[in-house]
């Protein structure tokens, strides 16, 4: 066992969610400037609020490594190290702590899933944290003043707010349809035995 408490079931879920994020990228991107508007951020929010911080970190981490090793897993079939030298690098790297924070907030209570904790998680993690890394890195890479990069990022806000609402609605529907999705590997199969 590589990481304590992280077993095959968690690994499989992280990999599946990474694949979902990749597939959401196939839906395409809207090029509104140097950083695209993409549905993949919805996948990042969902990973956080559904899988919880640990598995979401692995899921998003997988996507980032796949980008780095040169697979076209980002929207519009982009990938490769060039992305990490480009203006969207900060947002992209921000997905990782973003998903973790989303998971921490959404799952901050052991009680039943709640719509407001889910929404808050998606908002703070999926927007707050992602932008907090994305804006400064974009400013640095493009050699522009921070406030300009910040103003420029306003173009993502409407779309990202919609994604927060979608992530919340989808997570709650998923909880009705398949509550096990929200349990950890060990809990999802209580009596099952693992090596």
């Amino acid at each position, binding site marked *: 066992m*590589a990481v304590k408490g992280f077993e095959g079931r968690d690994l499989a879920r992280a*990999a599946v969610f990474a*694949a979902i994020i990749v597939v959401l990228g196939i839906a395409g991107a809207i090029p509104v400037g140097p950083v695209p508007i993409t549905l993949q951020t919805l996948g990042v929010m969902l990973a956080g609020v559904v899988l919880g911080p640990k598995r979401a970190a692995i899921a998003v981490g997988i996507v980032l490594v796949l980008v780095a090793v040169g*697979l076209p897993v980002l929207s519009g079939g982009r990938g490769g190290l060039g992305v990490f030298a*480009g203006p969207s690098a900060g947002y992209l790297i921000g997905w990782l702590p973003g998903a973790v924070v989303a998971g921490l907030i959404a799952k901050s209570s052991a009680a039943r899933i709640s719509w407001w904790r889910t929404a808050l998680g998606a908002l703070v993690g999926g927007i707050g944290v992602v932008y907090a890394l994305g804006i400064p890195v974009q400013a640095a890479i493009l050699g522009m003043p921070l406030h300009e990069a910040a103003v420029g990022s306003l173009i993502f806000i409407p779309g990202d707010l919609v994604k927060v609402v979608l992530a919340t609605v989808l997570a709650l529907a998923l909880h009705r349809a398949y509550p096990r999705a929200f349990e950890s590997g060990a809990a999802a199969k209580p009596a099952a035995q693992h090596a």
Partner: protein
Amino acid sequence: MISLYRPGSSPLHRMPAGAKLALGAVLAVAVSVWPHTAVTATVTLAAVFGLFALAGFGPLEWLRQVWAIRWIVAFVAVMQLVFSGPLEAYITTVRIAAVVLLAALLTITTRTSDLLEALQTVLAPLRRFGVDPWRVAFTLSLTIALVPVIADFLRRIREAQRARGVRLGFRAVVPLLVMSLRHADDVADALSARGIA
């Protein structure tokens, strides 16, 4: 999933992945922090195209790669023109393009599998902290194998909607997640059964 790798037998292709990455990173940082003039920036970009040529990629590929970053180039050029004037705009745009193209060159001359192996080497010291490099590499391969499977789930859900004459819109993500996560449980069983995780 098709990798962005372009086969070839140039010195760049044959260079060990780890060394190539390290060298690339050093070069990228150097280009970024060097206080460029119009001349040094131009020379730098020319040098990057020179490396492309060394790897066996001609002008057609240069165009293709520049086209891929057209949005970045256009945006930087316009912003800088408005705020810093034409000279600054030229220098900054060329410098940024050079770095991004250099990184892209690393990607198209290195096999995904070689990068994964380099990654395992890099991760080896983390063994002490409970990270199993083999497992990391395996998880990445597993994800690559899963992408077409998940894409097929999406196709089947779309088809089911058409067949039933309904449109779920974004709510179609719910059955996608249910199918995918149940699939993950089946995969987990297969992992256990094959003694992998």
